[in-house]
């Protein structure tokens, strides 16, 4: 193992430490997980529950001419079925975030009258066993009338068949963003680099646990309990309540352990609605397990995006003045979270660079492929890949060193906080220093010698850099930039900290962790504030909306726990600490200033012998409160705090305003060796440098960096949701959708710096989504390796061996088309 950490090793929690924050406290979650005692959604069982199996479309685009479920329902052991027609009568179509005309989409939990992608759910069958449910699903008779599918976003306009007659067009959203003075920038330029077409491919994070749910309906109260693994119940509730014609509180979401999410477990509201309807219709609990193939065919693909007719204005020394591009986003068949991706990229509009003049004409179209939804790096990854590609193409065309071009154009640490051309504020960071650390880790000083050595072995060595901004804690007001009618803005998260009757400290979070280990940093923050040990703090596992410790935006997504989650935890713990001191002051007869919280008690600083243990505090307030002074009336020792980041609504006219609170940073450097005979390449050296401000648990942060890197390397080389011209998914399982296995994992060196955020309660920044840097780095490394070997321009984010071979064989056809114009 070659993991290097530049910052000094930290002591473990059991060793005495000034604060628990900053320590590598072993995770509280792990004890149950390493014993197989975690509770994941598919582990939840109920007496008499039925198993759901979905009948899915074999066609990418077809009218449904008839559906006959009679044979299925006659099969012994079958409890019942649900069809699109029933859904259409029992529910409202899902609320659309889009403005006209896409706002007219009629999106139901099951296909109604038409199917729009292979794998779309048409009928749900419920039976006594999993096997029977699938047997019965084979007896459902459906007749189709196929329509020509659209599988290429570039063919979605003009006279192409329309997916959604209700919208009358395949264009789901379009808008132009212009900041600065493009004409001046291009006038000032020495050269204009023109790039015909860049393509960011379709994949997602394939969490190892697929989606699922167990739904129960309480006929007496009309309330559903949904045991699931949805990572953003706040969003699911907003979608499901109106659809099911019920209040939000009728939908109780319960999760405990979730087997990874990465954004892919946000948009399960259609499946959850089916579960709810069936639990009510069949008068029994129903269980849904999404199988791996189902997930690949239908769940939350990451946005596929084209960048067309890009023009970059540069000076001869590589100074970047501005760019224009036409972004064409392929969102698949439905808008399940989209078109938010049409604006979220602009959190990082200039990437990490100082250019002030930017124009992006953004168009999002529907195609007959799985719907796109959030995925680690959501929408920013695509845009940052674009800016990184541009940097390396500019360097290539001007024959400059990509390192120099980056350093010349990176936003500088002395410019922080830095306002971007569109009003976002980069809070802190030192990109150039991070790049130096990364280069140092891969021994950049000797790169030429290594290039020569590789050449001697018949290999082509390439070095590539990927820079990523991980914008976190987003301002939901950005939704108004795509639809001014939307009434969302700001952000919030909740935590409740209480001191119970026997002195236990219990924390309830609003977040929905999927492996981030929230129980641990939460305990670290609370123990520092309450002066107790990390082990004294109990954090409830998972999420339950009936704990009343959540808000509208509660969930775990978009890199924000360290800010919103821990911000709420700190707020609640501070409130509790103040109440304990007030109680202590009354009982111990000392002024509050004279008190401190230490060793699980409130005590007098100068005379620690005089102390009131937490157990006594809990007992007094909860069970022995007669004769307490009136001014302690509001002391409950049960403190709920809602953290709200300081946000304004952006200027909708200028598309201008701060869209996220923090900007964590990752810079990756990859060194690869290409076998020119086959296009096969090995990553021989790799460094990931991270800066996410103050780190509460550095090892958890490093884990996020390494994990996100692995996902990126898989996406760069193997992972792709590829469709044939008929809209069949060619990679519906882990055979053809190859994710990195143990042997595929290259040596990984990590380093970090800490640039505390001036805007957050703990100086932390949300992080976890910066791994996209790996994709950028591999693309750059491949292009570098081909230098002097055809000099192909890497124009696609997906570079499997055969693609690299084609770049070597036919650099002109397989590579990107770039031209340089002297301005």
């Amino acid at each position: 193992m070659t993991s290097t950490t530049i910052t000094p090793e930290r002591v473990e929690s059991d060793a005495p430490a000034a604060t628990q924050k900053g320590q590598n406290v072993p995770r509280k979650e792990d004890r149950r997980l390493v014993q197989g005692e975690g509770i994941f959604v598919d582990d939840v069982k109920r007496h008499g529950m039925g198993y759901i199996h979905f009948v899915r479309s074999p066609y990418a685009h077809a009218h449904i001419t008839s559906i006959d479920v009679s044979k299925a329902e006659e099969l012994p052991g079958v409890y019942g079925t649900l069809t699109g027609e029933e859904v259409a009568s029992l529910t409202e179509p899902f609320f659309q975030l889009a403005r006209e005309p896409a706002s007219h989409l009629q999106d139901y939990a099951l296909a109604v009258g038409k199917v729009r992608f292979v794998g779309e759910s048409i009928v749900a069958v419920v039976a006594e066993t999993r096997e029977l449910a699938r047997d019965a699903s084979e007896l459902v008779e459906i007749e189709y009338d196929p329509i020509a599918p659209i599988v290429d976003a570039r063919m979605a306009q003009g006279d192409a068949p329309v997916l959604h007659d209700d919208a009358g067009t395949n264009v789901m959203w379009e808008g132009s963003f212009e900041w600065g003075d493009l004409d001046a920038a291009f006038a000032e330029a020495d050269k204009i680099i023109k790039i015909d077409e860049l393509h960011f491919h379709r994949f997602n994070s394939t969490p190892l646990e697929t989606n699922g749910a167990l739904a129960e309906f309480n006929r007496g109260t009309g309330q559903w309990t949904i045991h699931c693994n949805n990572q953003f119940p706040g969003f699911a509730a907003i979608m499901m309540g109106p659809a099911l014609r019920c209040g939000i509180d009728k939908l109780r979401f319960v999760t405990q352990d979730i087997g990874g999410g990465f954004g892919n477990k946000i948009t399960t509201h259609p499946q959850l609605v089916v579960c709810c309807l069936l639990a009510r219709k069949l008068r029994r609990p129903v269980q849904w397990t999404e199988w791996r193939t189902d997930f690949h065919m239908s769940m939350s693909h990451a946005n596929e995006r084209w960048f067309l007719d890009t023009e970059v204005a540069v000076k001869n020394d590589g100074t970047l003045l501005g760019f224009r591009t036409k972004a064409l986003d392929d969102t698949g068949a439905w808008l399940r979270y989209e078109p938010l991706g049409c604006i979220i990229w602009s959190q990082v509009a200039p990437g990490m660079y100082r250019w002030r003049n930017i124009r992006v004409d953004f168009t999002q179209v529907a195609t007959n492929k799985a719907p796109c939804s959030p995925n680690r790096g959501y929408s920013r990854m695509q845009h940052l890949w674009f800016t990184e590609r541009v940097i390396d193409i500019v360097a290539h065309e001007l024959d400059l060193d990509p390192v120099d071009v980056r350093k010349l154009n990176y936003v500088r640490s002395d410019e922080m906080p830095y306002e971007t051309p569109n009003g976002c504020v980069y809070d802190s960071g030192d990109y150039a220093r991070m790049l130096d650390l990364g280069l140092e880790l891969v021994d950049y000083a000797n790169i030429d010698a290594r290039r020569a050595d590789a050449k001697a072995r018949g290999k082509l060595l390439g070095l590539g850099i990927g820079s990523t901004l991980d914008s976190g804690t987003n301002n939901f007001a950005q939704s108004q930039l795509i639809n001014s009618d939307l009434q969302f803005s700001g952000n919030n998260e909740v935590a409740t900290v209480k001191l119970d009757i026997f002195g236990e400290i219990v924390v309830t979070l609003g977040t929905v962790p999927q492996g981030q280990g929230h129980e641990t940093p939460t305990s670290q923050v609370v123990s520092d504030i309450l002066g107790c040990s990390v082990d004294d703090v109990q954090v409830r596992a998972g999420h339950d909306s009936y704990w009343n410790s959540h808000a509208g935006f509660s969930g775990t997504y978009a890199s924000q726990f360290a800010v919103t989650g821990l911000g709420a935890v700190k707020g609640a713990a501070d409130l509790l600490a103040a109440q304990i001191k007030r109680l202590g002051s009354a009982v111990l007869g000392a002024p509050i200033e004279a008190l401190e919280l230490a060793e699980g008690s409130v005590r007098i600083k100068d005379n620690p012998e005089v102390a009131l243990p937490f157990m006594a505090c809990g007992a007094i307030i909860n069970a022995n409160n007669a004769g307490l002074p009136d001014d302690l009336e509001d002391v409950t020792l049960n403190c709920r705090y809602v953290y709200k980041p300081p946000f304004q609504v952006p200027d909708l006219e200028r598309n201008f305003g701060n869209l996220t609170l923090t900007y964590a940073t990752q810079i990756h450097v990859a060194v690869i060796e290409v076998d020119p005979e086959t296009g096969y390449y090995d990553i021989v050296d790799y460094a990931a440098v991270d800066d996410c401000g103050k780190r509460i648990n550095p090892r958890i942060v490093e884990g996020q960096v390494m994990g996100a890197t692995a996902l990126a390397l898989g996406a760069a080389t193997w992972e792709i949701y590829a469709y044939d011209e008929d809209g069949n998914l060619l990679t519906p399982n882990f055979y053809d959708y190859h994710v990195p296995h143990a042997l595929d994992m290259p040596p990984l060196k990590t380093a970090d710096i800490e640039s505390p955020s001036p805007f957050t309660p703990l100086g932390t920044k949300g992080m976890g989504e910066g791994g996209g840097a790996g994709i950028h780095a591999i693309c750059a490394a491949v292009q570098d390796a081909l230098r002097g070997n055809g000099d192909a321009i890497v124009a696609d984010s997906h570079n499997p061996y055969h693609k690299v071979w084609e770049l070597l064989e036919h650099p002109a056809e397989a590579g990107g088309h770039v031209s340089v114009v002297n301005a």
Partner: protein
Amino acid sequence: MNVSGERTFAAPRDAVWKVLNDPASMAKTMPGVQSFDIHDAERWTANVKIPLGLGGLKMQIDMNKTEERAPEFAKLQIKGKGVGAMLNMETSFELSDADGGTAMKWAAEVKLAGPVGSMGQRVLQPIVNQQVEHVLSALDREVQAAVAGGA
């Protein structure tokens, strides 16, 4: 996926044409036919179990002759429906006299949809080639039989 080829039969063109347009003898050329119904000269249906070694793939096949120019050209539309698999195939053949026999140019566009389709992509092409080869040699046998019988 598109496949095409050319084959020469040691038989006069009308004999070949006859076989190609006789559902009964065509049935004998198709892999894994279990039952076969002739609705009229243009439409036949069959239940087949395409032998795939690991357990056959059951399909109901519906064949329609969509174009015919005797004795040289015909086009067929073939739709197959099985659990988890949908087959759509358009095939055509063109006959011409070759020295001492008949040359047949054939072409087919094969589309396999559904979960099995996705699963099978990896091996679809070799399997199709192999089934086509099977059909053509069976066809050859039928033609020879017809010639022998006819003589």
